[in-house]
């Protein structure tokens, strides 16, 4: 285990963390403001990726595909909001879970019918497809740096929106106490629609940005959804800052765990069992982390006051 490897793995961990933040940001926003558990966030991420693949095939331009995919995802998201989700805001969490789970089932199967079961892919834009030399012998793909950059950008934009604008103020107020905001005469339904539309775009944006490094396939949002939930719960639901820090924490713990669990175990046990126990422990680490955090801070690292 050399120092340079540790450095690269730390960078990898941060990058995975930013990737998780991209997905978790929309989830925690919707959950925090609207108190709405949207399990369908994962399939909206998947849909973003599929739409980008489709529009890329039609236009051959990544940027155009990105914009069209976001627009299409927004339209579809608002349609879903209008037809289904709008009627669920007042319901309790369990009913939201079951209804959005139904939407997961439908869309996972739906993309299979429309685009086929075989995995698809989205190429990296030509000018961003190379690698750069971080240090002698260690190459880093440019696209991963783009992902890190866009994640930080999304974080910054969200921060500015939430702290500097009127909608942001309402969002903050809504996250703390939606009833009072509504009683003050704010059109809460419109606010919810804006927030939900924004959340949908964030999910789709994450899907498009990640599609070039991951396989675009039915069900690609399911595993990611669980990770995103782990992130927002550790961070404290509704807290953007919490989601950001928790995402980085999980990215680091997961990546470093995977990289070094076996090496560490080899210090205390023979190599062969270390090889089998190591990965099992590595896959458990983030859940252990979540259990520990919740044990000591039952409402996450950055609990939003008022709930």
């Amino acid at each position, binding site marked *: 285990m050399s120092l340079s490897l540790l450095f690269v793995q730390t960078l990898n961990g941060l990058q995975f963390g930013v990737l998780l933040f991209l997905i978790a940001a929309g989830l925690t926003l919707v959950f925090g403001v609207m108190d709405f558990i949207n399990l369908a966030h994962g399939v909206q991420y998947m849909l973003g990726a599929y739409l980008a693949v489709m529009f890329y095939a039609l236009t051959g331009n990544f940027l155009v595909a990105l914009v069209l995919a976001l627009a299409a995802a927004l339209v579809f998201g608002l349609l879903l909001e209008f037809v289904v989700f709008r009627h669920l805001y007042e319901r309790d969490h369990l*009913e939201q879970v079951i209804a959005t789970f139904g939407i997961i089932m439908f869309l996972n199967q739906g993309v299979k019918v429309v685009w086929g079961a075989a995995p698809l892919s989205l190429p990296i834009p030509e000018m961003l497809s190379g690698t750069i030399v971080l240090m002698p012998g260690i190459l880093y793909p440019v696209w991963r740096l783009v992902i890190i950059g866009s994640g930080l950008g999304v974080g910054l934009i969200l921060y500015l929106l939430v702290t500097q604008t009127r909608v942001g103020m309402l969002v903050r107020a809504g996250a703390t106490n939606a009833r009072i905001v509504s009683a003050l005469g704010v059109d809460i339904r419109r606010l919810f629609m804006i927030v939900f539309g924004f959340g949908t775009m964030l999910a789709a944006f994450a899907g498009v940005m990640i599609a070039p490094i991951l396989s675009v396939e039915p069900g690609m949002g399911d595993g990611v959804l669980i990770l995103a939930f782990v992130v927002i719960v550790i961070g404290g639901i509704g807290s953007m800052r919490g989601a950001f820090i928790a995402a980085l924490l999980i990215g680091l713990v997961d990546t470093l765990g995977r990289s070094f669990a076996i090496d560490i175990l080899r210090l205390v046990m023979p190599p062969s069992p270390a090889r*089998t126990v190591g990965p099992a422990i590595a896959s458990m680490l983030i859940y252990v982390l*979540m259990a520990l955090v919740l044990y000591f801070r*039952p409402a996450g690292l950055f609990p939003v006051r008022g709930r």
Partner: protein
Amino acid sequence: MTDTTLIAPQRKPHALELAPVFIFLVLALAPVAAAFGPETYLLGLFTRVMVFAIAALALDFICGYGGLVSFGHAAFVGIGAYSVGILSAHGVTDILISLPVALAASAIFAYLTGTVCLRTKSVYFIMITLAFGQMVYFVAGSLAPYGGDDGMTLQVRSTLLGFQPFKNDRVFYYAVLLFLLAAYLACRAIVASRFGRVFRGAKENPVRMATIGYDVFKYQRIAYVIAGMIGGLAGFLLANVVEFVSPAYMSWQRSGELIIMVLFGGIGTLYGAIVGAAAFLLLEDGLGSITENWKLIFGPMLVLIVLFARGGVVGLIERLTGRAGRG
């Protein structure tokens, strides 16, 4: 935050009170009907339905009456199943050993994790139970001597003092039915007891219960252990139905399906869980044989149930019969 609960409608003495009796009658007579069809398959299917009904029942018990939504309930099913599998791999198949071991293992797991999980509330509780469920899932997948992720086949169903009563599908069916009945009656009795009143009260208003002088945490933990043990019982039976043990039994999707069963039937009614399990598994089986895209039908069905049939199947029937009663 809205309460993670549904307030059970105030029911008057009503024809629906007979529903549990009706359900168990149907289940008791089902094998007679099955004898005229493909018996092994139908018995197997219904046995599986009852096994999942037991697991869903346990979940409804803590979820519907205590407001504790566990997203890791499949872990208990898995622990029960693995108790049978691991013992049987070492040549121990007697139910008098494997059942107590399965129950004890799930009780211990429930006690330990409950101590941690019950510190949290609402969504945080959902997620922390998921965390523990995932941990058990990964542990099971890494049990190389017991098949790891592939799982392992049971050579025989559980035995009783050297006999193999469960080898006969009908006998096994009725045994599972008895277990289901026992679990149902036990849950009902507990809900109605003084313990149950405190437990239910803790869902509505934990602060008040604490002020009156009840240690809410302890009550909830006992209930969680009971639910875990019933889940373990379901796992014990599932291993015997399928004659196969696999980590797939405790994936988070399975925990999610259990929640769906509870909601599908009607939360906070206990027998609704049985209806829900039956509806879920029979739809899965039935729709699956019509089209491979059955999820395109099933998904929207879930949405419709939430939108238009609050209280699940039981709630729906309740309203229909109620309307009919009023004329």
